[in-house]
């Protein structure tokens, strides 16, 4: 990515210092098996050396359910809880945050989520340039972020396919493109898992800013998605072989969108199918 303009600050992407930083980040994000891939991905990011130096990545202590960074929370005295993974998941225990514990008790169709970056001002600016300005060229950047996180957290998972969170048809027609469709397509090419659009948004939900609380949002989201596949074949894969599905989104806020997606997929494919999520920001 040498010589390009930095997507975050517009600076020049090159130099020895940047090489060093790419190496350092790659070591921090990878295991020996994934190092070469992660190195190539980090190096491909159009970020200059000063932005890479200040880069914040969600760390090692996370909620094992929603992928939230817990380092500061734990330091501030927030507790983490041991939680058995719901009845139809394996009985293994994991450490989760308070929010996830509450969701878990009501039954959570989403197995887990992982995100790479905290949603800070810089992330906001980049996402809005992509999503609202419509700079589709940013898709490559976001799919590289997801690929990095995939190799870090999901490398040993066996996903049959990946899918995106769809937009409602009318919003899609207004906006002209679904940013996550582009990202999912790019991610699929990077990690070699087929991209199959499984879902359709059947209910137009109000914009995030116009919704009041978490509960209302959860309520609104319920039944907002339907799975488009009911036959025995899913885009060339035999339905029964689909054991694990990955859904990608730009950001995990309360998780209600992704939970609704997971519920729709499991509704159609059976409750033995496990759904995980991967987001750029958490």
């Amino acid at each position, binding site marked *: 990515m040498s010589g390009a303009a930095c997507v975050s600050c517009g600076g020049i992407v090159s130099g020895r210092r940047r090489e060093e930083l790419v190496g350092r980040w790659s070591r921090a994000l990878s295991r020996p098996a994934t190092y070469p891939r992660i190195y190539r991905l980090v190096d491909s990011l159009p970020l200059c050396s000063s932005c890479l130096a200040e880069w914040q990545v969600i760390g090692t202590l996370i909620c094992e359910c929603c992928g939230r960074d817990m380092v500061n929370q734990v330091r501030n005295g927030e507790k983490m809880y041991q939680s058995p993974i719901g009845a139809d998941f394996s009985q293994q225990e994991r450490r989760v945050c308070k929010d996830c514990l509450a969701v878990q008790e009501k039954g959570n169709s989403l197995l887990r989520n992982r995100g790479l970056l905290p949603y800070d001002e810089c992330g906001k600016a980049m996402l809005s340039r992509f999503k609202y300005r419509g700079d589709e060229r940013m898709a490559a950047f976001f799919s590289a972020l997801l690929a990095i996180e995939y190799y870090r957290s999901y490398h040993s998972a066996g996903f049959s396919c990946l899918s995106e969170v769809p937009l409602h048809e009318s919003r899609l*027609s207004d*906006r002209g493109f679904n940013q996550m469709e582009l990202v999912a397509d790019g991610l699929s090419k990077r990690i070699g898992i087929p991209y199959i659009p499984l879902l359709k948004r059947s209910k137009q939900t109000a914009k995030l800013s116009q919704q009041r609380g978490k509960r209302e949002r959860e309520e609104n989201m319920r039944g907002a998605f339907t799975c488009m596949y009911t036959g025995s074949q899913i885009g060339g894969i035999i339905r029964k072989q689909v054991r694990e599905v990955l859904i990608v989104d730009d950001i995990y806020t309360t998780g209600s969108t992704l939970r609704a997606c997971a519920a729709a997929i499991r509704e159609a494919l059976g409750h033995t199918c496990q759904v995980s999520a991967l987001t750029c920001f958490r």
Partner: protein
Amino acid sequence: MREYLLYIKVSGGAAQAHITPCFQVDQAFWREREGAQLYVIGKSKSLALAFSLRGELNNALGDHAFTEKSVDSYRALASAHVREATVLYGKQAAGMTPIEKEWLSLESVGGSGEQADTLPLSPSSKDTLEDTDELKRESERLLAWMSGRALLWDEVGVLLNKKGWAPRSLEYCFQWMILSGKAERRPGIEWRIRRSWLRHRMLFTCARCGSEQTIVLTRCHSCRQGCAYCTECLDMGRSKCCTPYFCVPRQKASQAYEAVSPGKLCERTVNRGFTGERMAGTSYERRAALLDWQGTYSPMQKMAAEKARQFVASDRPGLGEFLLWAVCGAGKTELLFPSVAETLRAGGQVLIATPRKDVVLELAPRIAKVFPNARVIAVHGSSTEKWEDSDITIATTHQVMRFYHRFPLVVLDEVDAFPYHNNPVLYRVVSRAVQPGGKILYLSATPPRYLQKRLVPKRAQSHMHSRTHVLLPGRYHGSPLPVPLVCTVRGLHKHLSAGRSVQALLETLAASLDGGRQVFVFVPRVDQVPVVLGYLQRRLPGYSQAMAGVHAADPEREEKVRLFRAKQLLVMVTTTILERGVTIPRSDVIVVGTEAPVFDEASLVQIAGRVGRSSDAPSGTVLFIEEYRTSASRAAIRQINRMNQLAASLQQAGGQS
């Protein structure tokens, strides 16, 4: 999702192709004009495709006389063109898959491919327009709001929202305006097929900013056709193949302002020279042109201002551009007043375009003060008066894109600092904001070569002025420009990072500070700001609290500049962002690392121009410290010396006469 119908209108033997998103409006329009017959060719969801087909058809129609039998041949021609475009788009969009069966398609209408589809057969004949009176009224109203603007569909929505008005059907109103010849609907991105022996290609052009290299193909869910968008002007909203872009030249009729507040119209004494016989036009224009300025011109300024005014007043055809070349600190804003007044008096509106928002914000109140009866608006990204009507508009370059054939006079301030400097986009955008036959006035202290070549005639290079330029080599206070001193320091940057003494830098800085002056220290790159700042703080500990560093992305930039203006800070280590605009009386300048390519001749002249601006402290020190000798710094010094000589000879000549 819009669909565009393509049809041929035949009346009195002449045939022409048209595009419409609402055929019933066209039917009603042509019904009022006798004898027009309409033959539908097909419909498409891509406006760019319809637009391109219209061009092809009109070419073909110009060549042959139209007969009813030939309609099928025109349909065939259209389908052939669509097929060719589909193949080419597919090639150029390698790796992408179309949403529908084909990348581009032209559907037939009405199912009767054989029969000529004439008037009564309409795609939605149930919805015919009987009464057009209301449509005409609404269309007139829309015309008044849109007059002199070029807007994408979404921007029209924003404008009308701001005005608190919604027509029954915006699409109908526009179509009526277009049929009446008062507006144009273009696709945001246009394409044409370029054929060559090597290969044929589709060439895309942004109708808004004119870029060709920055168009990205996209699988568009709005039109579900092969589409493209422009990345150059993306910040202003997406311009796509399927977004309608409306261009409406300024209409004379719409100048009728809704009542100017009477309080503003109190008659004041009119400033020197602009009273009496030159006053023409209606009373509103006379009042708007009132110039209330108590300052005085130096003889040199007076000459330059008059030359510019003559250019604006001249109705000589072909004389469209003028360069006002005034050194830093010549008082160029004041020079504009007569030209602006001249245009206002003739009933025209003036646009002053400037590269940066802070200049817009600074300029607007100054202009408003001297033209007390004129409506002055500041137009930038977050401006609330963006959509107002005005006599004088002060705008950033990006905003200039939204104007269309509106201004008889456009002033381009600091033309060499524009983001599109030396980029065809700037010229395209500016020449579109000007009315046909209007004037562009360039303002610069360091005009770029291409502009000098165009507007400063070879023969006239030793003269101060020609028909297309005027040079103002001296400052308003009459003192010469400070000439930079140059000091070459081998291993400059190593010395700085190692903390070793760089005598010239430290001595000059200390002398300035001890003399009670403030100092700009320019460095070439962002990462050198902390290095040089730290170095100076360690070396001059007595002043270390009064030093700060600033760069473009610095969140505290405005605050630091404010403190510097307030003399709370005495030394400002900065990148070239403070090269223009910020003027501090009693300040000196040191450039550390002149050899870096960001410091070209123009940039160094501008930087040196920071010093000695005020009349009570017209001198100061400018020091260039460089690692090795460079041509840019010599050229800058040569230019400054030349200006000083010219100014001196002018003053002498003035003194003798």
